[in-house]
């Protein structure tokens, strides 16, 4: 789960990381009012879950409150990579001497939270890693000890030469690790971490993604979910316990298991079609889940055919067949349904479908080819 910049800064502040003040505005009036209260030049920053906000024109320097009003009215409602800007952060503009990068993420190889720091902040860290890897210092944190003080210092030493800045950065790096762990994050970054002319460091931009598996024990973090930042269909899927990702094609896919769901999408493409979505109904044979899945798929106006690909392992084919029959009774569907059902209790499942007027395939390739044909027709 991604959280916004202003929310990440709230998390940072809880751990003592120096962040500039800032307030959220949802209208141009509010933005002007906030800028007036600061009485200085401000930045107006779009709050969306996307990188490249600056390039898209979603981050503006404003010399006074009336400029803040103007820019906020332009940015609010703006579309950035398919996301509508609903909120802007208004924050005093800082004087910047230097820009550094400090980030933490879960590294699969070392199986640990891993720091990456660079004195070259303000740009995409992947670019720095690709072009000047010697400008990055990395450290994996042993989860049994946490980040040790000398390790934080070793990272800070790579960023600055001035002893006061090193001391401040070392402390912020330790605080960032604390914030990472206490937030249940999977990734967080300060980019840039700036130094000001009077010799202070500040986190003027912040990113954080939360490990969804942590949310059950961190209600304060779970409350940070911005419901307006995800498509309604994905929210409905999440609430129904389904994994769903909307795509741009017209073959609606309903599959059990994430790997098989991806392979099904790939096969749609292989036969010349375009998948409309990723959807994993999980191991459940609960008819309610099948109903939710069908409601979500059919709510996408692009969908021209619905493709079921079910491999019954633990899931029983007869249960899924009952779910499909029940679901089609409960919701009115315009699109044709093609079904592949094989595995545990296959014969029973096929019988149930036949009695309800459906036919089913047993081969994945056959059913996908048929679905692609129907989508074209």
């Amino acid at each position, binding site marked *: 789960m991604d959280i916004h910049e202003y929310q990440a800064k709230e998390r940072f502040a809880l751990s003592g990381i120096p962040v500039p003040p800032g307030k959220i505005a949802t209208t141009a009036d509010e933005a002007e009012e906030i800028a007036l209260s600061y009485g200085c030049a401000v930045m107006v920053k779009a709050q969306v879950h996307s990188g490249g906000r600056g390039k898209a024109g979603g981050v503006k320097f404003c010399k006074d409150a009336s400029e803040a009003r103007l820019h906020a009215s332009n940015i609010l409602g703006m579309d950035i990579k398919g996301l509508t800007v609903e909120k802007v952060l208004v924050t005093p503009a800082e004087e910047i001497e230097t820009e550094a990068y400090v980030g933490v993420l879960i590294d*699969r190889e070392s199986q640990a939270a891993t720091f990456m720091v660079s004195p070259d902040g303000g740009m995409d860290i992947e670019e720095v890693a690709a072009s000047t890897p010697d400008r990055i210092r990395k450290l994996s944190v042993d989860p049994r000890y946490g980040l040790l003080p000398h390790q934080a210092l070793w990272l800070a030493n790579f960023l600055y030469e001035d002893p006061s800045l090193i001391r401040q950065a070392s402390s912020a790096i330790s605080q960032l690790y604390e914030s990472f762990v206490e937030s249940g994050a999977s990734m967080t970054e300060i980019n840039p971490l700036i130094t000001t002319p009077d010799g202070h460091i500040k986190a003027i931009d912040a990113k954080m993604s939360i490990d969804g598996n942590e949310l059950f024990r961190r209600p304060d973090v779970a409350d940070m979910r911005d419901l307006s930042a995800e498509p309604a269909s994905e929210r409905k899927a999440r609430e129904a316990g389904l*994994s769903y990702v909307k795509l741009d094609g017209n073959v609606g896919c309903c599959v059990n298991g994430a790997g098989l*769901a991806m392979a099904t999408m*790939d096969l749609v493409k292989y036969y010349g079609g375009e998948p409309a979505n*990723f959807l994993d109904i999980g191991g459940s044979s609960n008819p309610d889940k099948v109903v939710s899945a069908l409601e979500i798929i059919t709510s996408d106006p692009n969908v021209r055919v619905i493709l079921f690909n079910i491999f019954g392992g633990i899931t029983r084919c007869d249960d899924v067949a009952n779910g499909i029959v029940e679901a089609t009774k409960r919701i009115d569907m315009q699109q044709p349904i093609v079904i592949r059902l094989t595995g545990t209790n296959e014969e029973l499942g096929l019988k149930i479908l036949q009695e309800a007027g459906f036919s089913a395939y047993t081969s994945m390739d056959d059913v996908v080819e048929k679905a692609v044909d129907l989508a074209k027709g």
Partner: protein
Amino acid sequence: MSIFIDDDTRLVVQGITGRDGSFHTSQMMEYGTRVVAGVTPGKGGQDFAGPGGEKVPIFNAMDEAVSKTGANTSVVYVPPAFAADAILEATDSGVSLVVAITEGVPVLDMARAHAFARDKGVRILGPNCPGLISPGKAKVGILPAQIVAEGPIGVVSRSGTLTYEAVFQLTSVGLGQTTCVGIGGDPLIGTNFIDCLEAFELDPGTEAVVMIGEIGGTDEQEAAVFVKERMSKPVVGFIAGQTAPPGRQMGHAGAIISGSAGTAEEKMKAFQDNGIAVAERPADIVSLIQDALK
């Protein structure tokens, strides 16, 4: 022959009294797996009734279960909030393999558990995995037993149902398996592709290996290099997620393209560059394996 589990496997089920734990314990026992103990804190002293009326003793804690029954493998069906503790307890109890089925364990909890297990020299499989099955010998986890058969193919995969699809196709043309292993869909897993490939290479019963990967991370790319440098047996590969958009989690917590890294294209290229035959679709796996065995 087989890898990781066989006729000598003596299994303890953690969370044996739960809904999933009890259902799958019966399934494992029906397949012939020797389930020697169960653990559910607070239910020690009771018995679990097996499908044939067998009684499996339940203990409050892992150390007791292991010392009283000689269990050497554990399987974890404990809910996510308590799973990491159960895994840690298992790694500290004397078993040599811990199979963690639970989906949804916080990643930072697993970072700690994996570090602890490495120190203890205990293998963790998973979490968020379907487990493994050595046909004709033992099954630990949730893989459907009716689709497997004994034979010379090793199967290793990050996915559940996609594995079933591949195994089902192999079995239906008469190609049985030594062991089918689901390594799990989480970002931090205890046993990776290389661990399984190494074991299959050493297993005299395995003649060829099917490796099923997906988007996210670099495990497949590293495994590809391992195949080229260290394996004499042929490997056939498949990667799911060619149509997955970047930056989106595709069901599995670990199935995500980060920036430009971890794409299906990159992984398939790594396979090809290192002499692994790549199946374009699941249905091609069988013919590629048949070619490899010629």
